[in-house]
């Protein structure tokens, strides 16, 4: 079931919605490794697309291309039909106001309090009114179930709380799309589940388009409208979570089951 040959198993609803993000024939080499080899993908407005694949398979690299943090060797990334590949860092600011990112490490600014972290994008986007900023920060924190934690420093927060604050910082500017880079990695199952529920809640309440990169299949099945399986630098499968579960393709089956075919000496 290679990328070009794979049937697109998409719901009719997703097919009729316009693509917010389109990736066309994306190629990227890092060092000796060809990470992306002609990657194609459309993400419809309002959908939650989960991109799964093995660690080191290029999922995070792909996310960085979507927001212009990396430039491809070849190919194009379109946001609302506008190519962002040739834009300069300053021109990309306009695009980046539409798309927020929750980084794998949350990437909170460690010299700032929780409140300052969340208010940072508001202030940078030109909002001056302290009362409105406070209100928006409180609203974003309430949305991620961290009301009243404004004054804490990031180093005082647990891994799950850091992710939540990172998420609050991402949603406070009301972006059209949020990119999640391994949102549940390194968290215990209970906290991971709460993050998954949060992603669903944000999609339902705010109608935000979401692209989630993960290798956590439980998380993928929980939050996805559609799943894309990244294999060998291309989309190997794209379809609904049910279609992924029902797949008889050995590669997909092994990935879902977490089964390695490598023979170990003690087996």
């Amino acid at each position, binding site marked *: 079931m290679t990328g070009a040959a794979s049937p697109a198993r998409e719901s009719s609803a997703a097919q009729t919605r316009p693509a917010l993000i389109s990736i066309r024939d994306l190629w990227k080499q890092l060092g000796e490794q060809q990470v992306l080899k002609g990657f194609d993908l459309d993400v419809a407005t309002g959908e939650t697309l989960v991109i799964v694949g093995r660690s080191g398979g290029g999922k995070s690299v792909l996310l960085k291309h979507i927001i212009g943090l990396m430039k491809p060797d070849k190919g194009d990334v379109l946001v609302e039909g506008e190519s962002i590949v040739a834009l300069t860092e300053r021109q990309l600011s*306009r695009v*980046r106001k539409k798309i927020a*990112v929750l*980084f794998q490490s949350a*990437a909170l600014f460690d010299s700032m309090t929780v409140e300052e972290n969340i208010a940072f994008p508001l202030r*940078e986007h030109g909002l001056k009114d302290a009362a409105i900023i406070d209100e928006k920060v409180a609203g974003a924190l309430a949305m991620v179930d961290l009301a009243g934690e404004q004054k804490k420093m990031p180093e005082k927060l647990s891994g799950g709380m850091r992710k939540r604050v990172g998420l609050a910082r991402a949603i406070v500017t009301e972006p059209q799309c949020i990119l999640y880079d391994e949102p549940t990695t390194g968290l215990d199952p209970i906290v991971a589940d709460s993050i998954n529920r949060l992603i669903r809640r944000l999609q339902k309440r705010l109608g935000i388009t979401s692209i989630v990169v993960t290798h956590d299949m439980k998380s993928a099945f929980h939050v996805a409208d559609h799943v894309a399986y990244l294999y060998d630098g291309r989309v190997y499968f794209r379809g609904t979570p049910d279609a992924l579960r029902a797949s008889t393709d050995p590669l997909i089956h092994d990935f879902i089951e977490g089964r390695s075919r490598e023979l170990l000496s003690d087996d």
Partner: protein
Amino acid sequence: MTSFIRLIGQNVLGFCGYLGQLLLLAIDSFRSIFTAPIRWKLFMGQLLEVGYRSQLVVLVTGGFTGAVFAAQTYFQFHRLGMDSAVGAVVSVSMFRELGPVLTGLMLAGRVGAAMSAEIGTMKVTEQIDALRALGVYPVDYLVVPRVLAMMISMPLLVAECVGLGIVAGYVVAVVLLDVQGAYYLDYMLSFTGSRDIKMALTKGFVFALIIVFVSCHQGLNAKEGAVGVGRAPTEAVVIGSLAILIINFFLSMILNAIFPAGI
């Protein structure tokens, strides 16, 4: 033989590439200063860190250098009966060479290391990616406040270093070694002029740019992991210090043509 030539070629190309990256960072920073809004709060914070908090180390360096330089000069000149010339030698040396170079070296160690470590840590913990993702250009946010703070602080720190060096030299020569104070001052003032002050401040300004761009570049290009973050400040200090010493020679030759030493 071919591999040796290739190795030299690779190093020369690598060095040219590095200089090119520094130049691009400098151009980008100066463009930002004139086109992007200045973040005054960050600038004031850097001014406090770079300027105010560096004073002790610079004053101690300047003071003891002036003192020991006056003593050593006296020991040599005393045999020739030229005690009163000590003030002129200390003053001109502090202004034209010792003050700017020692201040530069101390700041390359204290401030350069801190800058590259801080920015390097931000790089490997994805905070710089987060800045970019939030629509903030890292040069505007991280480099420009540091450049402005260094450009303002460094000449003032050089002035402090030179000033205390001369005072310490006077105390050692006149109070401890019994040089005639009036002659000491008269010779010093005869041989020291505004040309020496201009040379000191110009060098301070140039060294400030070397330190800040080398350090910020090392931080922004820090490699992943603890080793990468650890290497960034080490390289910033080594490259910054060597660059100051090497450029100081050429700067001295050029500035001596513009501001010639002597009466």
